[in-house]
Every structure is written in C-alpha cells, then in structure tokens.
C-alpha cells in the first residue's frame, strides 16, 4: 500500500459519489476464500494493539495476514481512493458476536462529535464469513454521516426509514465514513459472527485520489442526490448542501453545486445599475418625529 495503486483498481467517480451520499462503499466478496479460511484463526488469536496514528507499515508489515488483506488490489484501491496513500492506523479491533448473544447496541456515531466538514477517516470492516440477517450484521443509516451528533446522543433513535442491515457474502469489505450512524445488532443465529475493523486516518489532502476518468458522467450527480426514507423530510435538502460541500473538497471544484442552493446563497451583486443612481434619497430623519 505504500506504492500508488493502479487507476484501474481505484474507485470510480460514480462510486465516490455513492460514498459521499451514502457514507459507505461495499466491496462484495472481494477477499478470496483462501484468505477467509485463514482469517478466523488469525482473529481468534488476537492482534496486537498500536498507538493511535501508527503508520501502516509498522502496524501491519508485509508478511502479516492483515497486510495481505489490505494489499488485495480491490481493497488497496478503495482505501487509497478514500484516504490516499500511506494512511495511518487510528485503531483496529476484532468483534465477535456470540451465538444468541448480546443485545443490540443503541444507535451511535463512533468516537465523539467530529468537527471536520471536509477531511474524513474511513473505517474498514472485513467479514470473513457470510453474514445472514439473523446473525446481526451492523445496522447503519445511509446518508447520516455528515450530521453533527455526539456518540450515543442519537441513542433515542431506534429505527429510521431507509436504515439498512448488513448481509453479505464471505470476504466482503465495507468502508464507512467515520460519522455514519450505526449500531451492532443481536446475533440470533447458532454461529458466531466475526468482524475485523481498522480505522484509517489520511495523511494527504483527500483531493482527486480516485480514478476520475468518469468525472463528467451524469450518474455522478444522480448518485450525489440519492434519497433515503428519512431524507424525505424538511432536512433532506440540507443534506444535499453538505454533500455538495464535501464534493467541492474532494474535487477541488469550488463552484460545484447541487440544485443551486450554495450558488443562490452567494447572489449578492455589488454592481450598481445605471437606473439606480438617482441622487434623491427620499425620506430622511429631519422629516421624522413623534406625532408629526
């Protein structure tokens, strides 16, 4: 991952637009069975921790299982498209939901309220085994990642229209924006449910890191304007504004807009029209007074 990934393995502009609107990208079954079969043993054995911000090469050097996973072209390409080359490791963890075990978590955002409106971290989640509905794959609410909330302040929200529950084939990697609302669900099956996660911090400005060959594709704009059940509401349009701002940051196009909202806000012409230059100003304070 320390070398640049070939363009053909990076995300397309349409896929990036999907990430900006949904807050996630799913790479279904991209990890081959040969790795998935070894994964359980590696995860059960546990992985050593590292200080926040440890370089990738230090945390997962070449030769380790995790590095093999991260060097898969599809995975390396997606990670580099989102956080750039040489990201550092914020933290990582193995999550195992035992059969018929645990309770659903309250809905939450990870860490604490993050004030970044532009740069972002990405959380990679790897599922070495198939995840069925009853196994309690993560519930997440698409499009919530740009809202400012703190941790489990959203714990009062049990269900939102348009929420999704992860089900996937073995070897799936999901990449989430750090701010997305989500929660772990209860495992009602007879099988333990494994998930390995890594949070990446970028070390470069996240500018045009993906394969921009399709940057003019109309599907980019369509993806950016995606709606979900909960956005069919008074605040749906405000989310379009937040997405447009993030797209400006990612592309460097400071004029980009969705539905003219940001452009309209800047319409304050200073040009004085000829017809408005009459010197008569009309009523002034000498004519004003109580009772007059």
């Amino acid at each position, binding site marked *: 991952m320390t070398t640049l990934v070939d363009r053909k393995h990076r995300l397309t502009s349409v896929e990036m637009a999907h990430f900006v609107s949904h807050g996630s990208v799913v790479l279904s079954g991209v990890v081959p069975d040969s790795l998935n079969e070894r994964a359980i043993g590696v995860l059960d054995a546990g992985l050593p921790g590292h200080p926040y911000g440890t370089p990738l090469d230090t945390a997962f050097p070449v030769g380790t299982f995790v590095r093999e996973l991260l060097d898969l072209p599809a995975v390396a390409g997606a990670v580099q498209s989102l956080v750039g080359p040489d990201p550092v490791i914020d933290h990582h963890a193995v999550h195992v939901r035992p059969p018929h075990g645990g309770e659903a978590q309250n809905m939450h955002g990870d860490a604490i309220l993050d004030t970044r409106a532009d740069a972002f971290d990405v959380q990679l989640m790897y599922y070495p085994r198939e995840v069925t509905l009853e196994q309690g794959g993560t519930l997440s609410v698409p499009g919530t990642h740009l809202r400012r909330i703190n941790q489990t302040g959203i714990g009062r929200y049990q269900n939102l*229209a348009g929420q999704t529950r992860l089900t996937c084939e073995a070897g799936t990697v999901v990449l989430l924006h750090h701010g997305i609302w989500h929660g772990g669900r209860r495992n009602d099956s007879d099988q333990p449910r494994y998930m390995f996660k890594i949070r990446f911090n970028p070390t470069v400005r996240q500018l045009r890191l993906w394969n921009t060959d399709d940057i003019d594709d109309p599907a980019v704009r369509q993806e950016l304007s995606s709606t979900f059940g909960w956005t069919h509401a008074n605040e749906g349009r405000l989310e379009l504004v937040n997405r447009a701002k993030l797209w400006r940051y990612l592309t460097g196009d400071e004029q980009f807009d969705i539905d003219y909202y940001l452009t309209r806000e800047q319409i304050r012409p200073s040009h004085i029209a000829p017809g408005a230059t009459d010197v008569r100003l009309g009523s002034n304070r000498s004519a004003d007074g109580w009772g007059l």
Partner: protein
Amino acid sequence: MSTTTSNRPALSVENSFAVPSATPQLRQQLLVLYLGTSALDSDVIGWTRYDGTGRSHPTMGDSDEAPYANGLDALQDGWRLLQMSQLLGHEHGHEYTTGYLPYEFLFERLVDITA
C-alpha cells in the same frame, strides 16, 4: 419578630416515594415519532418505543415499517401527545449544519397490566 416554626416533613423521601401508586395496575408505553416537518400530520421518518409493562423489549433496528404513517394517525389511534419539539432558530454561520432530528413527538398510552 416572630420565629418561624420549622415544617418537618411528614415522611422521609424514601418512605414517601414508597407509598403505593394510586393506579398500581397501570403502566405507561411510550412512542416517539420523528416526523418530516414540524406538522403533526407529516410523515414518520423515525420511531422509537419503550414498554413500561416489561412484556416486550423494543430495541434498535427492531422494525422497518413505521407503526404509523404520520403523527396524526397515532393521535387518532388513541395515543396521547405529551410533548413536541420546540422550533429552534438557526445558528448564524451554521445554518446548513444538520444534527439531531429536529421534529420529535412524544406520545404515551396507559396499559392495564392486570387485564
């Protein structure tokens, strides 16, 4: 100047709060609806339930279908509205910032657990 006589409470806080309820057979169920606008008759976009009877355990992600299409339907089905969100102004410089869902409506109903 007269001295005030101290008014000693008749019971300790613990004892007063241990007096049985006048309606011991009733339990509260709560329904929180998040609506699309500040209007009660706007669409439900989120929902939460709490069951004071202890007979069920509503939880995160327990359903994909809202119990009602809009807030007025809940009212017409007998739920009693306790509180609706205050409408807050928009902070200067942060007008487009979104956060917690703004239109929250809290309903209750009472259930007889002896029935």
